[in-house]
């Protein structure tokens, strides 16, 4: 049984390895090869290492001769093409691709035999292989499986098998009752669900406080490289979202975060002024929202956009500067999008003359102080003053700084290691190359240092050339940072100081075009779904049309699944305990003694002192009694209860005392529990009890 499970675990890894080479290797063949290698390893497990290694090489070469050499020779005898002519090529490819599987399988069979090495080490090797297998995947999506949900479904039995092999107690228990196997499965399920739930909760909290800003996420786009000044970044071409905007193609700044706080150590961060204000962008929920303060901004044009999020936190509000209305859409069945909503924004047009004449920033004292913080660096001020020497109004100053950075600095995804002066000063005074965040942070601080309030916006810069119908794909490499400056009644206005001149040696190639098939599929889906606004009460909207989808189930599971499973687990445990008590309460004396005996055995199993295979109850009692005197007493009581109800009654009455004693001797029990946890968390933990 254990060997079969070990094979299942190894087979899972071989299968996933095979998925990396679609069309080239058959994962089933790899699983078969893994089984053969494990068998070979087991077969040679009594031999020396070099003998086993030599045997594995010999078997591999023999197989190659048999599957490649012989068929090739036979095929070449015939002058006409034969249907099986291409088999040797396929066999050769499989044998070469299977080399890591053969090595791992043979090694495991040979090394992890009973008595040589602990099963925990084998689990550790598997965990490392699993991490290595999934390390190479996309930054926020799983490429081997169509959805994380499916991956979860596949991973669950694998984890159960690994847990079963890892925990000796679980194996011992599982051998006896099927219910206990289910219990182990339930335990694994509960652990996964709790983690999943905690992850969902964390995401919810982080979104509420500014939106998962510092959160590297396996499945979603992560903005963190844009809000820190890294020495090197790389942005992939994965699709993050689609948005629809009718009319001629237009370059847009889609704003996700407004960063007004600054700390020299960590850069700009979300820090809305007291009272919230516009920088505290709300998460997208089920309700429509309005932003009345933005309604009255003059010189702006109303732009309506619909957002369809693919790889982004579903609660992320993306909008142009400045949003006036948000209308979430109801999700449709089998949606490819994690969320969809419509946003109307009022966008500043060409306000050159108006802003030039605007003397004030329109902020109150508290707001101004908030957006001028950290503008007191002498070096920066000196530079800012020299740049803005000929500028009078805040608008002229903003333009001067923007043009200075645009014209004199170079764009680079590899800004390099900063000196002791810090990344920003290194950028401004030494390297003069960086990516958008370097430019935006610098401009904001330079403006602050000459008394012009400024803040940084982070989001995406879109490309009108990629527009198909009214849809614009937005991909990870389009993430961008820019600056906003306030101008009285005109509100905050965007400035983009990022240079378009590439630094030498950047080696940037043109990004991969959007996959036309994927784009067409998504557009067709949206056109068919014709998204409808979500009504104020979500339940109505949900009941108005079928709402089930994998995404919704995952979302629900992440929020509540873990807690529910944990509750179920506790309830199940309580149910079994109460059932035991009830059974014992109503049972005749002899059965009571029997139940007490079983209870004791169960407790002993938990602390690793359970009966061994082929051990009679008497032998077990004798063996264990060397350490604990109560076992034999109960065993005697159990036997005497067969003949005397009074003895049985006595045995039952002694049970609480025995249990108490067990609790007093709880070192074993506590150690057992700690060991369970330790072995899950640290598989290399020694799992021998202290004597």
């Amino acid at each position, binding site marked *: 049984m254990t060997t079969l499970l070990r094979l299942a675990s190894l087979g899972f890894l071989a299968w996933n390895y095979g998925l990396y080479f679609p069309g080239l290797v058959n994962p089933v063949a790899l699983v078969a090869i893994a089984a053969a290698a494990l068998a070979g390893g087991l077969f040679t497990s009594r031999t020396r290492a070099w003998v086993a290694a030599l045997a594995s090489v010999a078997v591999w070469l023999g197989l190659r001769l048999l599957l490649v050499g012989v068929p090739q020779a036979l095929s070449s005898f015939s002058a006409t*093409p034969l249907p099986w*002519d291409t088999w040797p090529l396929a066999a050769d490819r499989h044998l070469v691709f299977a080399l890591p599987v053969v090595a791992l399988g043979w090694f495991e069979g040979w090394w992890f035999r009973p008595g040589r090495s602990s099963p925990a080490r084998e689990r550790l090797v598997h965990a490392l292989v699993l991490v290595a297998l999934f390390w190479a995947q996309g930054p926020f999506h799983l490429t081997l499986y169509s959805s994380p949900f499916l991956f979860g479904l596949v991973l669950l039995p694998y984890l159960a098998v690994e847990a079963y092999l890892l925990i000796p107690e679980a194996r011992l228990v599982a051998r006896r009752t099927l219910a206990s196997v289910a219990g182990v499965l339930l335990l694994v399920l509960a652990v996964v669900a709790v983690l999943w739930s905690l992850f969902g909760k964390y995401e919810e909290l982080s979104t509420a406080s500014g939106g998962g800003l510092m959160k590297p996420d396996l499945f979603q786009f992560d903005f963190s490289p844009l809000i820190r000044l890294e020495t090197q970044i790389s942005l992939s071409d994965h699709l993050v979202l689609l948005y629809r905007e009718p009319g001629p193609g237009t370059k847009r700044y889609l704003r996700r975060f407004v960063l007004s706080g600054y700390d020299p150590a960590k850069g700009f961060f979300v820090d809305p002024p007291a009272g919230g204000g516009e920088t505290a962008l709300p998460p997208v929920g089920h309700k429509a929202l309005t932003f009345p303060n933005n309604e009255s901004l003059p010189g702006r044009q109303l732009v309506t956009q619909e957002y369809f999020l693919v790889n982004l936190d579903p609660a992320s509000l993306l909008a142009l500067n400045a949003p006036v209305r948000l209308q979430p859409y109801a999700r449709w069945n089998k949606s490819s999008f994690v969320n969809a909503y419509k946003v109307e924004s009022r966008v500043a047009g060409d306000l050159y003359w108006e802003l030039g004449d605007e003397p004030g920033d329109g902020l109150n004292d508290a707001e101004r102080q908030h957006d001028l913080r950290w503008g007191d660096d002498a070096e920066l001020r000196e530079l800012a003053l020299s740049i803005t020497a000929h500028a009078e109004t805040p608008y002229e100053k903003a333009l001067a700084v923007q043009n200075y950075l645009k014209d004199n600095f170079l764009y680079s995804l590899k800004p390099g290691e900063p000196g002791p002066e810090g990344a920003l000063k290194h950028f401004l005074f030494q390297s003069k190359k960086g990516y958008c965040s370097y430019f935006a942070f610098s401009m904001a601080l330079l403006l602050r240092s000459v008394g012009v309030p400024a803040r940084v916006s982070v989001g995406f810069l879109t490309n009108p050339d990629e527009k198909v119908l*009214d849809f614009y794909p937005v991909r990870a490499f389009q993430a961008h940072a820019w600056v906003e400056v306030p101008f009285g009644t005109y509100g905050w206005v965007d400035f983009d100081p990022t240079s378009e001149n590439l630094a030498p040696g950047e080696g940037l190639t043109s990004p991969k075009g959007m996959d*036309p098939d994927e784009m067409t599929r998504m557009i067709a889906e949206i056109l068919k779904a014709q998204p409808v606004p979500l009504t104020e009460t979500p339940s109505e909207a949900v009941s108005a049309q079928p709402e089930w989808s994998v995404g919704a189930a995952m979302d629900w599971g992440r929020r509540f699944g873990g807690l529910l499973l944990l509750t179920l687990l506790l309830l199940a445990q309580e149910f079994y305990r109460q059932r035991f008590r009830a059974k014992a309460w109503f049972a005749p004396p002899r059965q009571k003694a029997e139940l007490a005996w079983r209870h004791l055995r169960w407790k002993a199993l938990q602390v690793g002192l359970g009966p061994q295979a082929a051990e009679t109850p008497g032998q077990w009692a004798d063996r264990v009694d060397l350490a604990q005197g109560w076992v034999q007493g109960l065993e005697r009581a159990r036997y005497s209860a067969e003949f005397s109800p009074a003895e049985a009654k006595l045995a039952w009455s002694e049970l609480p005392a025995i249990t108490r004693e067990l609790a007093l001797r709880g070192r074993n029990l506590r150690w057992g529990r700690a060991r369970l946890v330790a072995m899950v968390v640290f598989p290399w933990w020694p799992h021998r009890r202290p004597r």
Partner: protein
Amino acid sequence: MKWLGWALACLLLSATSVGGQTSLGEQTPGPQTSADLLLLGQQAERAENYQQAIADYQRAAELDPKSPEPPRALALLYASQNLQRLALPAWEAVLAKTPDDRDSWIEVAQTHGYLNEDHEAVVVYEEALRRFPADLDLAQALAWMLFKTEDFQRGITLLESMLKSQATTAGVEMILGTLYSSQFSEAQARVHYLQSIALTTGNSLTEKVFRSIAWYNLSLLDKDFYHFEASRDDLKQSILQQERASNHLAMGELEQEALQEKAARQSYTKALETDDTPLSLFDLAKLEQLFGHLNDAKSRATEVANFRDETWIFNFGVTKEKFLRDQEELAADIHHAAWLLLDFQARTTVWDWFVWAWNKTSEGLQWYYHDQNWKNLLVKTGNTSLQVRNSPEAWVNLTLAHRDLPGLGLKYLSLSRQHELPRNPLSQPSYQLEEGLLAGDEKLLERALKQLQTPGENADRARGLAKLVELRRGRGAEVAARQALSDLFAIGAGLMPAQGLALPVRSLWFGADATQLEQWRRAESDYASQSHWDISGASRPGVVYDLDIQVFSKDSRQLFWTLRDATGAPKKSGRVEYDPQTKMEALASILLQVHTSD
């Protein structure tokens, strides 16, 4: 009071009138007819409000379900946005409403073609031809799709049967030429191509482009049948008619075959300026790979992979799968070249060795992976060709796929030769070369090399010579191997490093004191053993080139080198800067400089 009464009456009337107008305005219904909606849709489309346009067209279709115009407008809109997958059902809706309109059939079939669904396009064209049996345009379109699906004989039979009752056209002649060319029927193909040129007499742009394509096709025919000079002349004619990216690409390919690196790059770059396909990027990548400029090759190959619009394939004699196959071959060649070039890297510290080993493993694995993908696709495309009885192409594919399993490779090579050689006698040396390469037969290779003498066959000669070096070294015939290396250097010095080969030379050091020279000689010896570059100060049989190296160490640390042939005449020279701590790196630089194209 009377006037007051009148005034009140007027006020009331005007109020009623205003109210009436407002009420009427509110109740004005939207456009009621399909035609109105079509008009509105077109207006929305012009304003790039596609969402509205689609809604209008769909509503128009609902109002007038029998009219083909709303789905036609929708199909045109989708097609204009290159959303062929969405355009297809719209065209099918048009066809369902107008089954007697020939153009509707063509639109559906063409859209299948744009989606690279060639077999589906054939089915639609066949059905259309059943309905319009005398339509030569339809027959021509079907014949093109039959060419794309490699069903050449059916295409020829179809067109020739049509021509029995109708006068031919330039387009039909061109497709007949292409079909005959694919069947190795040189004479017939030539006749049809020339006929297509003769039939196009006008001077409009369309006609010029047509003639240019015809000359281009003729050049491909000449190249396939080893008339390299004629092929060049055809291309010149083609360019004379109309400058097109394809012409420059074909010219570049001829130059590349002749190992004229700079000329080929120039042609490809010229093609790139006007090319709306990834083919010039692909050819440039191939050229850079061949001559060892691997960073450029990788960057071009990435651009090819990033080129996502595949509708261009419809108009070319290639399929999606075949283009993917060629990309995999390119990727494999790039990684293989990188793997080989690593051997010429100088390694002085433990870290250098570690990095070298890491890169060697990484490049080796990537080479193997792409090579297997390529072979897998060769088998797939070969099987597809076999299904439609295009055996010659299948055999070529299967020969290449079994390059490392010579037993099977030779079998398919023999089948291919049996088919082609009687039709294309000049292909004999090429077959000898391929057989020699597959079987590792030195004699056969030598025989083939004697016959491959035109500049257009230089690339083939280089492959043969490289294999000869390997075989001769394998049997310990170092002198003969040196001879092959010198021959290879004479025709294609630039491609040697990317094949892991270097010219054997006798080194002569000057310009420094005895201690320094001794150090340089030791560095040379170390580098020679690391890189397997046959370089030494000793005279060795078979070594015909001398490499003079002058050391400057006073003002600037530089090495000046000159390569001299057997007569002592300088062939090449150059200089490299050096660091005394890493002398081997300077030698590595000299090696790369010596092996550049003239």
